[in-house]
């Protein structure tokens, strides 16, 4: 669905520099936030609430872009657009793709933290 990389290692390195000791806290916070958002996306989808779905996807997108997960961010944007268009029928495969990509990002972020 997207050819963007799973992680933007350059951006992550900069964040590491900025956050110093709090980098690990940031990663954990991001992962916890993202899990909550993923749950919200599922709930919004089941409830058929396109507006809430779009808003959740929007916020999710923002934090993915900031943390340096461009591929996940791009998937969230697709979800946001589907929500805005009121087209939740097409959203199901996107949410599935987000779940897959999120576990990929989780694994890679953990190993990024360990490698540094």
């Amino acid at each position, binding site marked *: 669905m997207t050819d963007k990389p799973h992680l933007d290692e350059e*951006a992550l390195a*900069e*964040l590491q520099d*900025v*956050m*110093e000791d*709090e980098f690990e*806290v*940031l990663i954990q*916070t*991001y992962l*916890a*936030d993202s899990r909550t958002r993923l749950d919200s996306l599922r709930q919004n989808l089941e409830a058929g609430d396109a507006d809430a779905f779009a*808003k959740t996807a*929007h*916020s999710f*997108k*923002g*934090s993915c*872009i*900031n*943390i*340096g997960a461009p591929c996940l961010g791009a998937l969230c944007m697709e979800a946001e657009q589907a929500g805005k268009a009121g087209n939740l029928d097409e959203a199901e495969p996107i949410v599935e793709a987000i779940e897959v990509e999120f576990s990929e990002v989780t694994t890679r972020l953990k190993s990024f933290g360990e490698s540094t």
Partner: protein
Amino acid sequence: MSGASSLSPILSNSSASAEADALKVLIAEDSDSDRLILSALVRRLGHQVVEARDGVEAVALFCDQQPDIVLLDALMPRMDGMEAARQIKALAGERLVPLIFLSSLSDASELARCLEAGGDDFLVKPYNRVILEAKINAFNRMRKMHQVLSDQRDQIRRQHEQLVEEQMVARRVFDNVAHTGCLNAPHIRYHASPLSVFNGDVLFAAERPGGGTLIFLGDFTGHGLPAAIGAMPVAEIFYGMATKGFGAADILSEINRKLKKILPVGMFCCGAMLDADFKLGQLRAWNGGLPDGWLVRANGKHLTIPSRHLPLGVQAPDQFQASMTVLPVQPGDQVVIMTDGFSESRNVRGEQFGEAGVHRVLADLEPPKEPFDALMEHIRMFTGKPDAADDLTLCALEIIHHEQLQARNDRAPESALSGPVDWHCVYEVRERTLADFNPLPLLLHICMEVPGLRRKSGEVYTLLSELYNNALEHGVLELPSDWKTSPDGFGHYYKERRRRLAHTNGHYIRFALSHQPTDTGGRLHVVCEDSGQGFDFESYSEKVLDQRLPPGTRYAGRGLELLRRMTRQLRVHGRGNHVEIVYDWESTALADNAPSGHNDTQRIADD
């Protein structure tokens, strides 16, 4: 030493550029990870961070913490960024609090909505450290500049308020100095700004003790305080000397002397003095530097009273020319004087009304329209302003019958303080002094020391001036008063008067004044003698009064009649150059409505 170990977190984190001073930055962002990142970035720039998780918290923290800059996420639970922005801008009031939206919005119209809600800029995710720093610094510069401008504006506003307040106070002081003016008399009409004294214009009017009106219009160079300061002594001199009975020329000389002394070089006062004697039907005018004044006759004819002198405060006292133009006038005539603010009024195209404009208005004047109304109407029409401009003063004096003025002449009674009531004095004016000096103010002053007599200052002045003028003009100078019946003779009379005043050798006028108290007031006894050849006082006045005189002409004979009516006794001794009067006055308020004299000589019917 203990201080050194407790470095503040701001200091320890400050790797920021020297340009940014430590600001308090409010970050409102619902995403925990985004907020963590942004807070870390801002702290690293050396600023203090206040964090909010939604719009409601952001508004509350804004009130509580008074941050310098606000970073605000557009989409937040409870209250979104747009609404929070509106409330924060409203709370900030005049303070400039830069508000930067945080957004991953890519839709241009949504970004525009953020700015419409009061945002000053936006910062797009992912956050870039360099751009964030540049934006905070740029907005901090703007914020500080706004602060400086606001402070300066507030300072200017405060100073302006103070200035206006001071002007009001100064105006009250000025009004106290000038309080005895009679500008509100029905025969005087004027337009002047309430604060005209601060644009350099002054307008004073006083009733002469003998019946008549004195008006001074002045226009100081410059504006504001310097102009107002010059106005104070002018007011004091004018009112002080006018009530003491000094003539217009003496007052002008004194004003000039004072202003020459106190004003810096280059500052002076253009002015005009009108001295209307309604009894004599005579206007004496002086114009030094003001636009042409105008005498508009009741029949519509008009003539100018041009400036023939330098302004006041320019010439040394010995060079100053206080000689006045003397014009015969009749009731219904109008005299108009104005400051150059009038003729220099401009219309929307920047053209001046001009003195020619004034002339046109007066030439087209159709009675009974008064010159004052016509001029004000035209200037309003010309400038297109319903309220005429602040920096012009226009004054019109109507010549009236002197009886109209006398009706209002009795002043409020003064408290009866102790003073001289029983006294006698002789005062003789001799030789050259007859030409140079007017003894009436001095004589009036002596009489006014009697407690309670000041209320009658008008009558006493009239008595003294009738006696003195008869003695001088008909006794010493031997001028025949019937010269004044025609306009030509009028001019001739005053020319001859000036000429003969140069030859007063061997002459004198002697006043012997006595005052004694009575049960109800007092008795003033005046003897006036002169060194002239004398003439048949009684038959002379009879002869004059037998003629049918045109209105507006007033003569020695008429003056004699006036003396008869005002005094208990009038005796003419010898050749008519020794006149004696007895004047009784009452100090009680009861006397106010009684006829002002109880004549036991024969009474000559008037009109």
